[in-house]
């Protein structure tokens, strides 16, 4: 059983929804990332999403774009991202880590070389924004070889046929993009999210996480009501940007934001 499956099974038992924070590796400073990952776990994160910076992040809004630019400007490359995961694993062998990014850095490294290195570093899942399942055979095969889950996206526009096909290939969890837009946009209404999750659940027993557009405790709590996991990205990255020149405050204020959202989700859980 993978770390991701174990973690979701444990959450299921305790009737808790997963909170999945996203930060870009190396943003705003390389030395901030690993301690921040630990602090977010302490603040209530269940799974960690670590952004692999890319020069042309087409699916991201301006907030995460700028995070990528900050990281790249400081020399963050895929090797260093994997190094951060390895360092994180020295103290935490339980919390799943999912890389989120674009295909080209993996292509440049070579799928097999990447898969071996990622597996050795302790990566549990890879979510690749510009890799639909139709093009994913070779990459998924490389990930399979080292037991890493390919995480696939489903969007509001995904047809029923595609939902079935994607669910058939998905592992770990299914990531539902809650809106038509880039990361950091306004959230869609909760009823349409709930309806799509019902549709997805008809095709898979995997947990369904929801991301894009969740900006505070209240919206996280609403999403937690209808899904298995809540992904928060842009609001954290926004906070990191604000604190870029006050790195000492990052370890206080960013985990506090995670804890605040955790509390709102848990309060909602008690009401259900």
């Amino acid at each position: 059983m993978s770390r991701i499956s174990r973690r979701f099974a444990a959450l299921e038992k305790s009737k808790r929804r997963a909170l999945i924070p996203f930060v870009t590796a190396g943003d705003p400073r390389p030395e901030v990332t690993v301690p921040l990952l630990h602090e977010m776990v302490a603040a209530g994160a269940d799974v960690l999403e670590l952004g692999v910076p890319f020069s042309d992040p087409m699916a991201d809004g301006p907030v995460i774009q700028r995070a990528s630019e900050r990281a790249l400007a400081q020399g963050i490359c895929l090797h260093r991202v994997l190094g951060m995961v390895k360092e994180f694993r020295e103290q935490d062998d339980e919390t799943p880590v999912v890389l989120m990014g674009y295909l080209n850095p993996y292509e440049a490294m070579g799928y097999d070389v990447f898969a071996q290195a990622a597996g050795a570093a302790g990566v549990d899942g890879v979510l690749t924004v510009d890799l639909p399942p139709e093009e994913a055979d070779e990459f998924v095969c490389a990930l399979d070889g080292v037991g890493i889950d390919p995480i696939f996206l489903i969007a509001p526009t995904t047809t029923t046929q595609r939902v079935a096909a994607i669910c058939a290939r998905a592992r770990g969890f299914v990531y539902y993009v809650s809106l038509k837009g880039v990361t950091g946009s306004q959230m869609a209404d909760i009823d349409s999210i709930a309806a799509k999750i019902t549709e997805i659940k008809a095709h898979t027993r995997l947990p369904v996480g929801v991301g894009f557009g969740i900006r505070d405790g209240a919206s996280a709590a609403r999403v937690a009501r209808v899904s298995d996991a809540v992904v928060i990205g842009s609001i954290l990255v926004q906070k990191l940007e604000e604190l870029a020149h006050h790195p000492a405050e990052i370890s206080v204020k960013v985990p506090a934001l995670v804890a605040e959202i955790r509390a709102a989700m848990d309060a909602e859980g008690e009401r259900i």
Partner: protein
Amino acid sequence: MNTSKHKSIIGSQPDSRGHFGPYGGIFASETLMAALEELQEAYERYLQDPDFIAELDDDLRHYVGRPSPLYFAQRWSESLGGASLYLKREDLNHTGAHKINNTVGQALLAKRMGKRRIIAETGAGQHGVATATVAARLGLECVVYMGVEDIQRQAINVYRMKLLGAQVVAVESGSKTLKDALNEAMRDWVTHVDDTFYIIGTVAGPHPYPAMVRDFQAIIGREARAQILDQASRLPDALVACVGGGSNAMGLFYPFLDDMEVALHGVEGGGEGLETGHHAAPLCMGRVGVLHGNRTYLMENDDGQINATHSISAGLDYPGVGPEHAWLKDSGRAAYHAVTDDEALRAFHELTRIEGIMPALESSHAIAYGAKIARKMTPDNIVIVNLSGRGDKDIHTVAEIEGMTL
């Protein structure tokens, strides 16, 4: 030469998912997949629809001004003392470049698909102008994304787009050029996917764009082939076209792919020289990767991050290239070369002074390479150079380089 191999391989491209050999494909956000399928379905349907084809043909004739002439550049040919050079005069199209062949086609498609809003990316501004033009004519809302770097060097085209009623959005992210404009247009499309048609200007992007843009541009090659047979009673020895994303080249080459006796030469922006690293020549110097929806040759670093490119011409300043060109390169059917900024600039002046035709700086790369190979040939040899656009838009750039203030 074994011609049957190329015929069977090249004629069947792309496959149903947009692959040209190992290149192309659909590497797009899940949110766009339904829209891409809808577009592919509509495109394949209307391509077979006599009513659509008739409307397109009529627009190309009466609105664009086709057929464009195939002009024998006698003085230029004689001055080089080599092959007979013919110019395919895409510069004489409405809006001054080949770009409108494609925007007319895609806009008619948008109209039939019931889309009310058009978006586009542009580098030199020619595609943006061609898009704003057809949007104005069809009464569609139009938003054009353009890097701030390009906005500065193509101010005239920016103003043209505004006059045509388009909203020009300045893109500040990344290298602030064409690739970033494309990223931003993709972000817009993801956000407004229901009512918006994205008119991509080149033979790149996710399937079906590379094949669709090629098919709309192939009128260039179909005409040129008939015209040279009419004027010289034979096929040319070589075709030459500049390659940024590669739409004018693909449009010229495509109807000649099975004519194995015709050599195909694509010319990339060599910038300050391939050895300097400051260029825009992914086919000459790049490696294979995935960007903007397709797998192709890219200018990238060892980490797979896309490099900033450099070319004197904004239209060639792009780190990728259409996947069919990547395939033609690997299969050996076409050859790709680079011409530097300086060589292109000299060709710009040469053609202007000898023939009274001012080429766009993009096209000047093809002119320079055409002259280079023509010199090694004799007047019995025929070379067709695609004069993809006119140079009026570039006179500020040229003047500035030469220290003049207009």
